């Protein structure tokens, strides 16, 4: 549905987007990750036709967004960054305007508005002016606008930004459900959303795509992917390290925590021995009491960090062990 080919956008001397290509099919939810200023919003603005690309093409449903913008835009629902809405209008008035400009009239318009009001829980604020809404309601009002015409393509720029945890959960559920029948692309800073919502994720940095794959594939790129974390009691760190260092499967090991009760260590495998590492580690520490032993799946934030800021990633990679997943 969405095809992006060698997209480039230059602002003055800065190449905000520098040769980005990807495609999104119906039934896919593509997560767009990257640090601030990486070019996420600029790419989305080019997809929706708000700004023209310096070079490259975007087609939506087969329509080039520069050559043939109107039919392309008909297929797109767009939630811009910061969810702008006309502050002087009521929610009802705003949705009515959005429906009319999408060509909906009469019964079709009423039904469409009713549907999105229910989906986005806007009933209590329908006759309130947008100006007086809380951030969450304002955000959902703009979100409602984007799905009003039941578009085949959804482009959502930080759809969960500024929502409380319950609302975030609601919106993620909504995106996942709609993803079954639409092509969705959304940007986020929240890495857990990638797991709960996306079927595929792209990491973009300084205008270039630096990673593209399913959440599992991305996680496997993490340094800790395939590593074994174990906690043993009744031994000191030095003894454990020594024992582990003798294993042929181990590249290196690191002591994460050591106290009177025991030692927690992470063991990194040599290339291509992932599967047998856990067993060989378990055999090696026989005789001591193993309290915990598991293989790390890898962590998205680690991948994100190591890709987008390579020089500091090494420090973060093994230092923090809170929240291992």
């Amino acid at each position, binding site marked *: 549905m969405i095809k992006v080919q060698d997209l480039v*956008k*230059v*602002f*003055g001397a800065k190449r905000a987007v520098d040769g980005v290509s990807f495609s999104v099919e119906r039934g896919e939810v593509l997560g767009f990750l990257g640090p601030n200023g990486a070019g996420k919003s600029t790419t989305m*603005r080019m997809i*929706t*036709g*708000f*700004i*023209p690309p310096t070079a490259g093409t975007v087609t939506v449903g087969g329509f080039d967004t520069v050559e043939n*913008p*109107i*039919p392309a*835009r*008909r297929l*797109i629902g*767009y939630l*811009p*960054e*910061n969810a*702008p*809405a*006309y*502050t*002087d*209008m009521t929610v009802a*008035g705003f949705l009515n*305007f*959005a429906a*009319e*400009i*999408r*060509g909906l009239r009469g019964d079709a318009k009423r039904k469409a508005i009713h549907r999105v009001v229910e989906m986005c829980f806007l009933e209590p604020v329908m006759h309130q*002016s947008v100006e007086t809404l809380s951030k969450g309601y304002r955000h959902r009002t*703009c979100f409602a*606008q984007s799905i009003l015409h039941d578009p085949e393509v959804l482009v959502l720029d930080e759809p969960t930004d500024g929502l409380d945890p319950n609302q975030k959960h609601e919106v993620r559920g909504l995106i996942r459900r709609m993803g079954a029948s639409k092509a969705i692309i959304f940007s986020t800073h929240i890495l857990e959303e990638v797991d709960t919502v996306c079927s595929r994720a792209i990491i973009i940095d300084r205008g270039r795509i630096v990673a593209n794959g399913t959440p599992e594939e991305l996680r496997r790129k993490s340094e800790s992917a395939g590593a074994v974390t174990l906690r043993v009691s009744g031994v000191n760190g030095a003894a454990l390290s020594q024992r582990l260092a003798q294993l042929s499967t181990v590249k290196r090991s690191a002591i994460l925590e050591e106290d009177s009760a025991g030692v927690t260590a992470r063991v990194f495998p040599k290339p291509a021995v992932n599967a047998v590492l856990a067993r060989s580690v378990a055999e090696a520490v026989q005789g001591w009491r193993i309290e915990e032993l598991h293989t790390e799946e890898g962590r998205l934030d680690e991948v994100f960090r190591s890709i987008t800021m390579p020089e500091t990633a090494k420090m973060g990679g093994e230092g923090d062990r809170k929240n291992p997943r």
Partner: protein
Amino acid sequence: MNAWSNIKTIAKRELGAYFSSPLAYVFIVIFLLLSGFFTFMVGGFFEIGQASLAHPFFDWHPWFYLFLVPAVGMRLWAEERRVGTIELLLTMPITPWQAIVGKFLASWLFLALALALTFPIVITVNYLGSPDNGVILAAYLGSWLMAGAYLAVSCITSAMTRTQVVSFIVSVVFCLFLILAGFPPVVRLLSGWAQPWLVDTVTSFSVITHFDGFQKGVLDSRDVIFFLSIIVFSLFTTGVILRGHRAG
């Protein structure tokens, strides 16, 4: 037809925006107070002793509009850019010129309404004497066209900035030029040293020169075309500026 219904939808929203804020009411009240004050107190409506609106009433319009029309036009694009709704508007399945024309028409209709509400002065002059109502009608038409020209200039300045105040000031300056180019004292000053062809060229850019005919009841197609061409040119320029912002 599709284009027209898009323009209508945009214009309807824009008109609604005027009336949902105090702007519309404040504007209309001030406009009516000012035109009443100038007609009776400064213009000497009674002292002239003529059943005519040309001098006491319409003479002031180029000057009222200098401040009032930019106040109406300043928010058109500046506000959209400040709040960010321009990103919604221009990614809807409409062309930019439909949005530009829709917004312009809404404001122009609003000005027509304000102008129409001065009707008591027409009733007054008819009650006191027997004026030529054809002349008055022509002058109203000219006044409305002139307001449209100012408004279109305000569209340009509004598209240039996200700050309404900047838009207001710049468009006052632009409109002031449109007036002064034909303002008699300036013309006299100019004709003291400039060649006649230069004086003619400069004055032909003035709204005063072109409004004059309407005030006398003369509907000259050149005057109509002058105002319409300012409108068309300005709206076109607005489009170019908006495209320029988006192209980065």
